[in-house]
């Protein structure tokens, strides 16, 4: 009775790879599940780990239009859902000059013609396949979250003047969050939860190879390894995937073939944002590894 978009988890994984998104078992599995269960995905994790890109890539993979609601503090119904076009309504009232009865005018005023669609409504009313991305949902106030709940659980929107509008097709929905605020239980309950962490070394290397034109396997490998080692340090801000990519691109521009301590140190400012982090990294690049992790067996 229902059509599923994907046959299997590996199909999702391969499909994403074809559009240059490198996922893992968790990411692909949850996208697959979201389609099966018709549930939105709440994607959370550190900055620059491909949360927003996931929604875009999924849209590309299934050939759907991406509708994006960018959240910010102060976002309201009129910007998220719909608004009446007051100007046009006023013109209509003036133009009509007593020919029609008021009832007719009123009915007319609150018809589709005067409705301004915002992203949420747009996604619900779309007839073609869409992916809805509600980006950085943690930026809106808790109270505003309530606007989303109806859509997320029932794929419908209630507009007092028009009644309830149901989705023509169930869109895949992604919400992203940087966890600057705890989201409400009500919102979380409606979603599948996906935490995207920094990728492991192998996946990061693949991302580099896919996203940085002409980079050699060898250089990509070095970049990924250095980034992995940096993330093990206690830094104020670990390098994100986008910073890794920026760094790899810079190295390419500089014509670097082999990353040595000097090159790494002189370009560390691309990878790290805080002066103290850069200083720490430079120190680490040049020194013997301190405090080798103890593998000595022994009860803790």
């Amino acid at each position, binding site marked *: *009775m*229902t059509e599923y978009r994907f*046959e*299997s*988890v*590996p199909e999702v994984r*391969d499909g994403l790879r074809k559009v240059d998104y490198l996922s893992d*078992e*968790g990411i*692909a*599995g*949850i996208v*697959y*599940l979201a389609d*099966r*269960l018709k*549930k939105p*995905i*709440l994607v*959370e*994790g550190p900055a620059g780990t491909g949360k927003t890109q996931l929604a875009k890539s999924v849209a590309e993979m299934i050939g759907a239009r991406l509708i994006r609601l960018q959240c910010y503090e102060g976002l309201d119904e009129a910007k998220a859902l719909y608004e009446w076009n007051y100007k046009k309504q006023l013109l209509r009232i003036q133009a009509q000059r007593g020919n029609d009865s008021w009832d007719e005018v009123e009915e007319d005023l609150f018809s589709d013609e005067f409705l301004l669609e915002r992203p949420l409504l747009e996604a619900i009313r779309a007839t073609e396949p869409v992916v809805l991305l509600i980006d950085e949902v943690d930026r809106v106030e*808790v109270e505003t979250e309530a606007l989303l709940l109806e859509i997320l659980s029932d794929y419908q929107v209630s507009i007092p003047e028009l009644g309830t509008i149901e989705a023509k097709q169930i869109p895949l929905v992604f919400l992203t969050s940087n*966890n600057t*605020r*705890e989201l409400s*239980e009500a919102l*979380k*309950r409606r*979603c*599948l*939860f*996906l*935490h995207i962490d920094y990728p492991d*070394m192998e996946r990061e290397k693949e991302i580099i190879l896919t996203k940085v034109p002409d980079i050699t396997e060898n250089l990509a490998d*070095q970049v990924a*390894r*250095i980034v*992995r*080692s940096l993330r*093990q340090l206690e830094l*104020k801000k670990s390098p994100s995937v986008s910073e890794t990519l920026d760094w790899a691109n810079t190295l390419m521009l500089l014509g670097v073939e082999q*990353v*040595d*301590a000097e090159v*790494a140190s002189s370009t560390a400012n691309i990878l790290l944002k805080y002066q*103290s982090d850069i200083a720490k990294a430079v120190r*680490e*690049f*040049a*020194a*013997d*590894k301190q405090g*080798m992790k*103890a*593998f*000595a*067996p*022994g*009860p*803790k």
Partner: protein
Amino acid sequence: MTDHSDPALVNGDDDNLGDLRVAGEPLLDLLNGFIGELREAGLPVSLTENLDAMAAIRHIPMEDREAFKYALAATLVKNNAHWRSFETVFEVYFSLRGSKYGLDDDSLEQDLADLLDDDERDGAGDEGSGQSGQGGGDGLTPEELQQLLYQAMMKGNESLMKAIARQAVKRFAGMEPGRPVGGTYYLYRTLRNLDLEGLLEKMMEQRREQAEADGHELSKLEERLEQDEYEHRIDALKKEIEAEIRRRLVADRGIEAMAKTLRKPLPEDVDFMHASREEMVGLRKALIPLTRRLAVRLARKRRHNRRGPLDFRRTVRASLSYGGVPAEPKFRHPRPHKPEIFVIADISGSVAAFARFTLMLVYAISGQFSKVRAFVFIDGIDEVTSYFEGVEDVTEAVHRVNTEADVVWVDGHSDYGHAFEVFHNKWGKDIGPKTTVIILGDARNNYHASQSWVVKEMQHRARHVYWLNPEPKSYWDTGDSIVGDYAAYTDGAYECRNLRQLEKFVEKLA
């Protein structure tokens, strides 16, 4: 493309979940049992989430273990800080379920034998790989096993590494049914025999030689990266060994008993005084979202409280301009302004971690207070407010507090009495009716004089005085703890052993 069409597992939408079975066990029961264990571990699982998980497992078969795990997590765990607890329960609960994960020594032998054959074929020419045709692990001497491990690790051959890990447990852990010892003991015995530190050294040595043979010396950076890689592999091996021990223990003792033994507190329940290094890291991570949450909650609370009670007289006066209708209610001034906070913290030995977390928390939400001043002591006392001024990173300030503050007077053993006396002389008069004083410590005073009159004096001047003690209440006033002496002059002394209790207290403050 893998297909998921195992008839026992994949079903159309109209099938009844109740009919699904895994190895004879109804899937539904399995899931309910699992969720029960999660709840036992303190994870909140709502009814909706329970139903979602049931729906999820119709679509992802258990054989697809990783995907199955993520599917359950996606429906049941909506807080990343709870992932570790989830994973532990998952590993225990499902460790023996699913064909590949059974505990079958014969298949274990066969696995290793097969892998050795494979390895032989593509690794032809490697020195020291003369174990072919011995038909599996049992035929190997310990030295041969060690050598094999070294080769697997050098090559990063994951499946061989896993097979060896299982073999090593079987051989070295000395596990016997019904023996009442913990997993760490078996881990210890296994690791002792494998000598991982020596292994790492040997790997590094080999790598250096190889580089030399290629005519260059490894730079410091290269050494570092190689070592990180090898440590990574060794970590994976260790995890595999732990997993194998766990599987065997579960087989021996049953799921419930094991889940209980392995149950670890959630980060918000970890005891400050006894946190392991790993738990400390978890605590620090949990603190950040917690402060954000708290700040938002407090700000909202303040907004809602902006109105004071109805000011009757002004309302009536205003009503005159509406013909006597009280159309415009007037309110008294809002509640008193944001409080001013004095934190006075013992930062000696065992309570240091607690002081650190409290300072971090208080400063992270310092916007909620009109002013925060911080004092730290051991037997001497020092004001550290300036350390926190204009810094972007509270952690760094706290670090400075611990390394730079001048808190030792005589011998660096806690002396609350002396520290309080000095406080009184230097800063006592700064405490006013808007000040809330929070004293942090276990009040273990090494049998010095308490000088509790200082606290009495504080209470006299301040709006509130609170005491937070990181020790369990049952330890208070035992041995050299004199918290009762001080508590008598406070508006409350609270046990504060974990983030959950700390959060609750701080919320009350603002």
